[in-house]
């Protein structure tokens, strides 16, 4: 569906998108901005390596029918095997819409979901034409998001158990799922979120937007695990803004999907804010995975550490574009960034582009990118200890990813991710028992 068709679909769906005045005006504003901007093309510098053609030409229903009780229940049936931390609070989204009966337990004390009116007022107050120009798919999300969920953690509340957000898809055929989450962390609060994308049946398009606003001294850990079916298309924006001394730890794992574009924007807006970002992705069998990030060091003494690792096999393609901007006045910035890739097939491709823009003195910035094959010496060392070649190769590929996966602090999640990554690698049956 091209931009004009989307606009027409929006006009004819307005009654179904009913909501508060704030919702209506926010959606209209977004749609108008998108109509002017259109889908990004490869002529846009930020989209040079990723072609959205499968989305533009795909016949996705931008506003899938509300799942009825039955659909909701069958979605819950599909949750089997998706539990990660037993007993952890959970929210389930089906084609972008939050299921009322998806909560496994009550929300922890000090965490609440705000009403739609407040949520949309917030969205309207923070959205700008500039944001839609930079992130046009966020405009589409705003226009069509079936509902938005604003999760607020009150000041000084430290939530112990991770909050598990599960995104299912495919209740309707060829659906577009425009899930929208806002997370507000009050001063000195702590929250861990597991954002779990698992549209496991049928072709579809997930276009998710997550915005986190962190007040002073708060800490957000967000693990984002993408295990879509291999024909699924996935685009998203994760937008995090940190106030004084706030910290964020973001962990990406991409295993599924056909076309994956993850936009990340982090604004270290006040002094002492810091973020730690790591990501692992596998791309083979025609999969395309693009991690595109922009980190703004706006205030002094802010730190960022970003490391992505890609494993690219047969006909896979990995893209990394990481921009770090150190603004005037952000002295004492410490920014580190790396993109390392294993290219396992001559029919695979890796495009990696770190970018640094520095407008102040007294900063420490380091970045590096590598694309390589397995290390012949490591391979020989393992074989000289009796490990056969296939097993040694598999283990080394796994080890490449594992050195980032061990940063995952939730043991149940780490275990699941480690075995899921292993399960996607060749010959894991030979060495999987070692894990």
């Amino acid at each position, binding site marked *: 569906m091209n931009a004009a068709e989307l606009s027409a679909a929006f006009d004819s769906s307005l009654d179904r998108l009913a909501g508060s005045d704030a919702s209506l005006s926010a959606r209209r504003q977004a749609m108008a901005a998108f109509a002017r901007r259109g889908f990004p093309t490869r002529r846009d510098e930020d989209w040079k390596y990723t072609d959205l053609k499968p989305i533009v030409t795909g016949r996705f229903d931008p506003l899938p029918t509300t799942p009825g009780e039955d659909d909701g229940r069958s979605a819950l049936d599909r949750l089997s095997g998706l539990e990660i931390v037993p007993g952890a609070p959970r929210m389930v989204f089906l084609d972008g819409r939050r299921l009322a009966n998806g909560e496994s337990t009550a929300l922890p004390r000090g965490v609440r979901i705000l009403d739609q009116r407040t949520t949309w007022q917030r969205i309207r107050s923070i959205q700008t034409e500039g944001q839609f120009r930079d992130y046009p798919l966020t405009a589409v999300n705003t226009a069509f998001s079936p509902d938005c969920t604003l999760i607020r953690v009150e000041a000084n509340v430290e939530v112990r158990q991770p909050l598990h957000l599960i995104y299912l898809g495919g209740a309707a055929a060829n659906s577009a799922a425009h899930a929208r989450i806002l997370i507000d962390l009050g001063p000195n609060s702590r929250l861990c979120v597991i954002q779990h994308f698992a549209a496991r049946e049928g072709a579809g398009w997930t276009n998710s937007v997550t915005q986190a606003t962190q007040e002073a001294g708060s800490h957000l850990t967000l693990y984002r695990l993408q295990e879509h079916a291999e024909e699924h298309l996935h685009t998203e924006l994760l937008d995090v803004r940190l106030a004084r001394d706030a910290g964020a730890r973001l962990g990406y794992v991409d295993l599924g999907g056909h076309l994956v574009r993850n936009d990340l924007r982090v604004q270290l807006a006040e002094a002492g804010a810091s973020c730690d970002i790591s990501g692992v992705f596998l791309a083979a069998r025609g999969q395309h995975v693009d991690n595109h990030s922009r980190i703004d060091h706006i205030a002094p003494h802010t730190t960022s550490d970003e490391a992505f690792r890609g494993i690219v096999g047969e006909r896979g393609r990995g893209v990394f574009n990481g921009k770090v901007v150190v603004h005037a006045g952000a002295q004492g910035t410490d920014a580190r960034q790396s993109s390392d890739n294993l290219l396992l097939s001559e029919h695979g491709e890796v495009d990696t582009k770190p970018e640094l823009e520095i407008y102040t003195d007294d900063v420490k910035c380091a970045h590096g990118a590598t694309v390589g094959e397995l290390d012949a010496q490591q391979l020989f060392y393992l074989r000289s*200890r*009796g*490990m056969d070649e296939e097993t040694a190769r598999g283990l080394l590929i796994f*080890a490449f990813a594992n*050195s980032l996966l061990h940063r995952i602090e939730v043991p149940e999640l780490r275990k699941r991710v480690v075995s899921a990554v292993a399960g996607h690698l060749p010959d894991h049956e030979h060495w999987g028992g*070692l894990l």
Partner: protein
Amino acid sequence: MDETPLLQIDNLHASVEDRAILKGVNLKVRPGTVHAIMGPNGSGKSTLAQVLAGRDTYAVTDGTIRFGGKDLLDMAPEERAREGLFLAFQYPVEIPGVNNAYLLKAALNAQHASNGREQVDAFEFMQIIKNKMELMKISKEFLNRSVNTGFSGGEKKRNEILQMLVLEPRLAVLDETDSGLDVDALKVVATGINTLRHPERAAVLVTHYERLLELVVPDYVHVLSEGRIVKSGDQQLARALDERGYDWVREGAAGP
């Protein structure tokens, strides 16, 4: 003593990128013996060790190697290991993301699978390695660290010997395991090597210095020079080399 050689090298020629390095090496190693191979830098000592283990950057252009009666050159590196050949690396390789316990257990179980022995489980594994780790003065935390990653030079060498003790090879080839060690670490390493001396096993110590040979006394000492063994003897030869250097053996291979 069993007189059949465990290792028999005949007329071995090997080259790297068309540059000949080994130019006709002959060597017989019987079970129960320890051989030292000494020689100046660039004489081909490490090449010999790597060729024995099956490193494919070296091309064997002529000659044969038989190990336990089998054609060694016909075997993949992992088959050689499972047959009981162990190379302690001069520069042990760092492998971030693979921890020591995985590697040790995988190596042991690969050998067991090949010999038709049962796989060891986590408990048995701990029983097997506990004393050996104490002997090598290696602490328990080490098992959860990535292989050789961030290890000091001495730790890397002790780790090689620990692997050797766990695998109990029929033939251990130690490539300059002594270099870069202080006296205390050298003693630990020597103890490890001596622990494995056995009438059915043999060792080839590739070394540049004589001091290891005071702690692990060899039955035979060979001098490798320009790709050939130019002189053989016993520990006295090693001492003479230590005193007089290599020039006198290189020039015409006349006796001392």
